[in-house]
């Protein structure tokens, strides 16, 4: 499944969340990650994030039915997602 993860966590934990998410997903822009995941990976991400964050933090995970969605970019696309470097 294709997911988009956005988070709003306390500055003390921002780096931790960022460092963890980038081992599974593509960094899109500040506090936004996206990428293709398996069910097991999503489960692992949820579990780990629950341990990392505190009560007042917020993480949203959007599960998309497929990767065929339209993206509208205004301004610059900081880090386009692609398998080709």
């Amino acid at each position, binding site marked *: 499944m294709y997911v988009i993860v956005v988070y709003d966590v306390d500055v003390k934990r921002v780096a931790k969340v960022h460092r963890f998410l*980038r*081992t*599974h997903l593509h960094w899109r822009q500040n506090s936004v990650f996206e990428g*293709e*995941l*398996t069910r097991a990976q999503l489960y692992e991400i949820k579990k780990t994030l629950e341990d990392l964050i505190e009560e007042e933090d917020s993480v949203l995970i959007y599960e998309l039915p497929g990767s065929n969605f339209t993206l509208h970019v205004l301004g610059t696309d900081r*880090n386009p997602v692609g*398998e*080709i*470097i």
Partner: protein
Amino acid sequence: MKRPVYITQMGMLERRGNTLFFENENGKKAIPVNSTSEVHCFKPVTLTSGAIKLLSEKNVPVHFYNKYGYYRGSYMPAEGQVSGSVIIRQAEHYLDGEKRLHIAKQLVEGIKASMLALLKSYRADASSIECIPVDGESPAELMGVESTLWKEFYGIFGSLLKNFEFRERSRRPPKDEVNAMISYGNSVLYAVALSEVRKTYLHPAISFLHEPLERRYSLALDLSDIFKPLTVFRVILRLVNRGKIGEEHFGRDVGVMLNREGLKVFLPELNGELERKVLHPKLKRNVSIRYLIRLEGYSLVKHLLGDRTYTSLRAWW
């Protein structure tokens, strides 16, 4: 689902913060290592020991190619499926002439079926391939049948191409654009087949149609041949006939090679074809073509262990 990463510029792969980073003078980019199936390097790439450690832990192989797209070698994580009894059976089936002939014949039948499947989907006249009998007394004779099949196939394939000329296969280095794409495609497919064979119990160096050569994983050659018409050649036909790839995507010196822009067009299309899902009649679910390569491996294992006779893939889509 894990995806491959293709690197088309020079640089260095290193470990930082538990993930891989690709870095060069143009900047750095994080590679989500947990979502990566393998890394393909088309330009010189340096791996740090930290990167190798991480790649081993996550079981991600790295494949290297030269500038014409020929496979140069791989970094393979030590982890893998090991089963002594399967390897012994595999060797036994190689050594026993009759047993080997059966598997080799199946492999050639599979190649023929794939060629016909592709040509039929383009409504080409494939009767000249259909009438070639797959028969032989030895694997060498079957290799002869295979090369006749390919020769016929190249001829019909060339006539289907609308923009580029393709007369004959030339290698090391490829002489024209179509040959360049075939070389790149075949090498990537070989590396993918190798990655998939490593997930089964089979030993990648003991092959049945090709002779097991030194320094080459010839079982990956055996299996990737079946999938060449279905993936590499289909992608080339599509890209050329729809005008998605043109002269500007190639570089030229002694031979012809895809440049960076060309790779950016060619590789995603090939990967898309490998990830394309088809309904499997026996498993009754959609499986990717890439996974079908591994399924070929599994049915070989079953054959070697005497559970079920091996019949190679007959492309049905």
